[in-house]
């Protein structure tokens, strides 16, 4: 049996593999290998129907959907769940993702029938509480940002980017500036930024970062101004740094007749410290699933409301809530220049409920403290690791996340990927790796405000021990990692070369091959 550097066994497998599904790391067959089309976990009356009203369109093709009885289903999904890492089970320092505590009060409130069991198209007179909630959420977001208007309906951060950039496009068109076709995007931006700009028909012009990791206002001024529609800038940026020339950048952008889109993915670091509206920003999406703690759910659902400046507010999409004479109104069709509708219904109410619950729990004072603690925790990690790990932009304070590059691993034979996988063996979810792209072998650590000091210390101890191990020449434990996860390293090349995207019966696969 092999041991790790702490003297713990790295393998338990009597079946020849350390991850063969013993004890608390169960292997679990696929739903289709356990269930069959005859089983069901739902009791329903078996009614006969007359098919005359189906117009001859009754289903003849097979459904082939496997069913499970209730105990089988519970076991299947509980066993599967144990193969996931989660915030509740340990620190999740995934930079740029803000994996903070998800309060359970929020879940309880979102399930009140008055929120969960209401239909988006029932008469507005019967959902006044829902509209009031949207108003209150909007008010919190506007107070925190000092902006003029907020479009609540975007379904996720990238959808919010799309919405915000659409308002910018609409504003330019309304002002006879529709010829502006360039969007400036720093190299360090999230991939969604250039994707969004391109999606809306803009060409993307990259702006390089300065040696200190921030954007140079001179580079913005040097861009061909008559054709520039907007800049998309993340602040704090993806290197975990506040764009210290942001006010000058905003002035330069406005001077050129362009708008300033801010990617607000990292708003958690600055809420109640500084407001985007005081920095010259025209549009910014806010990821409710990051800053306001609606759970990530294994990849959504999110919510990405966009706050807008006075210049862009008229272009906000429908629907929105307005005070009327007889109560609150949901404006679903509006005159004027608004950009239309970006989703059915009224957006992510379930996320609005959770976010507002979170805000009320924290209060203005708690949100300010949360931002400060997020920054404190990231700097604490940076300070504890700075003598060993390499800081790409020197020893300067960071915001909510600490960025390292891979120079400290030079000559060890260990890559950022290997290092991240070794963290799994030590009981942590890896940090974000290889992002942002502007830093070689990036490791982006975002502890969030939720982590107590002793957890940060344990994490830093582990990071330092791993670094020492790498430098001591023990590359093998890194390149072989993870050993203690439910599965070993995955063959991603094979997955992409011969995509297998659904379950198929073995006999069907064989038949197809013959």
């Amino acid at each position: 049996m092999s041991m790790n550097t702490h003297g713990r066994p790295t393998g338990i497998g009597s079946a020849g593999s350390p991850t063969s599904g013993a004890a608390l790391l169960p292997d679990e067959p696929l739903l289709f290998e356990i269930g069959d089309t005859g089983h069901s976990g739902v009791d329903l009356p078996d009614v006969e129907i007359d098919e005359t009203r189906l117009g001859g369109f009754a289903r003849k093709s097979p459904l082939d959907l496997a069913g499970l009885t209730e105990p089988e289903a519970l076991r299947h999904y509980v066993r599967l769940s144990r193969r996931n890492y989660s915030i509740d089970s340990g620190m999740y320092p995934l930079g740029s993702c803000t994996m903070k505590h998800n309060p359970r009060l929020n879940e309880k409130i979102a399930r009140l029938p008055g929120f969960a069991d209401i239909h988006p198209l029932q008469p507005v007179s019967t959902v006044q509480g829902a509209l009031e909630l949207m108003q209150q959420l909007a008010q919190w977001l506007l107070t925190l940002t000092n902006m003029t208007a907020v479009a609540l309906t975007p379904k996720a951060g990238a959808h919010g980017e799309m919405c915000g950039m659409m308002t910018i496009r609409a504003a330019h068109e309304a002002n006879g500036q529709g010829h502006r076709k360039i969007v400036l995007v720093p190299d360090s931006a999230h991939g969604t930024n250039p994707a969004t700009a391109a999606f809306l028909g803009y060409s993307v012009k990259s702006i390089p970062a300065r040696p200190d990791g921030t954007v140079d206002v001179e580079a913005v001024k040097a861009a061909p101004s008559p054709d520039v529609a907007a800049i998309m800038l993340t602040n704090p940026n993806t290197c975990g740094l506040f764009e210290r020339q942001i006010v000058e950048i905003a002035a330069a952008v406005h001077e050129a007749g362009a708008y300033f889109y801010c990617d607000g993915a990292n708003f958690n670091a600055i809420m109640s410290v500084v407001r985007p509206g005081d920095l010259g920003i025209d549009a910014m999406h806010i990821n409710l699933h990051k800053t306001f703690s609606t759970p990530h759910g294994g990849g959504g659902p999110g919510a990405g409301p966009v706050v807008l400046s006075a210049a862009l507010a008229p272009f906000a999409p429908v629907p929105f809530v307005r005070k009327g004479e007889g109560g609150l109104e949901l404006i679903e069709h509006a005159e004027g220049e608004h950009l239309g509708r970006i989703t059915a219904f009224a957006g992510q109410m379930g996320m609005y409920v959770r976010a507002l619950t979170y805000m009320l729990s924290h209060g203005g004072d708690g949100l300010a403290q949360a931002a400060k603690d997020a920054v404190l925790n990231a700097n604490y990690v940076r300070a504890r690791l700075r003598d060993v790990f390499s800081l790409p932009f020197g020893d300067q304070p960071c915001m909510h996340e600490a960025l390292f590059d891979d120079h400290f691993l030079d000559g060890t034979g260990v890559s950022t990927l290997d290092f991240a996988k070794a963290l799994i063996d030590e009981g942590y979810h890896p940090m974000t790796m290889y992002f942002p792209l502007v830093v070689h072998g990036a490791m982006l650590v975002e502890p969030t405000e939720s982590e107590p000091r002793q957890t940060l210390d344990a994490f830093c101890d582990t990071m330092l021990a791993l670094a020492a191990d790498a430098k001591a020449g023990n590359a093998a434990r890194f390149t072989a990692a993870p050993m203690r996860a439910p599965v070993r390293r995955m063959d991603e090349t094979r997955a992409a070369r011969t995509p297998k995207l659904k379950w198929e019966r073995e006999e069907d696969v064989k038949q197809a091959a013959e």
Partner: protein
Amino acid sequence: MRYLPHTDTERAEMLATIGVSDIADLFAAVPHAARLKAPLDLPAHSPEYMVEAHMRALAARNRAGADGPFFVGAGAYRHHVPATVDHLIQRSEWLTAYTPYQPEVSQGTLQMLFEFQTQVAHLTGMEVANASMYDGSTATAEAVLMAKRLTRRNRIVLSSGLHPHYRDVVRTYVGDGPDLVVIPHSQAGTLPLTIDDKTAAIVVQTPDFYGSLRNIEELADLAHDAGALLIVVVTEVVSLGLIEAPGALGADIVVCEGQSIGNALNFGGPYVGLMATRASFVRQMPGRLCGETVDADGNRGFVLTLSTREQHIRREKATSNICTNSGLCALAFSIHMGLLGEAGLRKLARLNHSRACALADALVAVPGVELVTNTFFNEMTIRLDRPAAPVVETLAGQGILAGVPVSRLDPDQPDVADLLVLAATELTTDGDIAALAHALTEALQ
């Protein structure tokens, strides 16, 4: 504040480790002039019971579906969700995990997505499905963009009966202009005249917004003869337990709103979009895809794959800017579908149709009501002898949610003021139907 672990002493000690004396030193890069000098005008932090009281007061001002007879559909449907579903999705390991970027510690989510993709492919009769989209409306808009990429053509034809919100979302995504052809309900028969060699896709919904079942095969032939694709939209996925799969009828892309399975009404979101297509189109499909592979020991496992389509790799050349899917809603869908199985889904679909037939029979017996939809699954449109919106308002005052006036979604379309769309599901009782028929009879006197 109960969510923040540090004491002030700990904060001071941590600042000392960092080497600064004050937290403000860490914010030195923030322009001084812009920094907030005083606390914002927001309430202070609040104990759990007070927050709960505040939120309960808001919830109490909404009329919940269970509070009385309920016939509202039009793209979101009130179904029973088994208790098991909501219990399981609240497990920490599902609820508080991120997108499965690190497959070794995300096999739960990844295997679930693989199962979900299989379920969606089988349900729609298509070869491949992705790991979900935000909702049905944005999935429809993404399908339209996908069809444009695949055909390298620009014209999109939206058939009559596409949910008006979906139509509006497509319009926002692709822009208004000659390349977006919208067939009004009153001119449904003109669709074939609009198809030409510039047409990228026809978009058709079945059951359509009014509840009618559409002839998919005929439209598939029409599209394919012109070298275009057929996009089929399904807003009520339960229908696929009784109505022929679009994939069996020639659909090229199928998008659905998956809310009906596993997900509550939630006033419109979060929901879960389904997208399925032909295997040969997969590299132009937006969104996350999960694929099977093996680990270093040769054991089966799952990863996100074909990510060279996606924004985090391709940046401005990505197929879409989409980043998340609707993971937890997809999980709820998958668990509920797993509980139903084929046998359960077929029963559920028959039950829904049977309740809708009972509703239709009761409605046509009401003087002043005419049933407009001859075919339907669980939703139908009736024409009243007067504008529908005030009638709906009157009945709401009596505790009956009678459906959706078409004019609310489509105020600009002529001749829809009297139309009312009503849905029935397994939750619709005989008593609900009798109460509606009685109230409607009185209102139309």
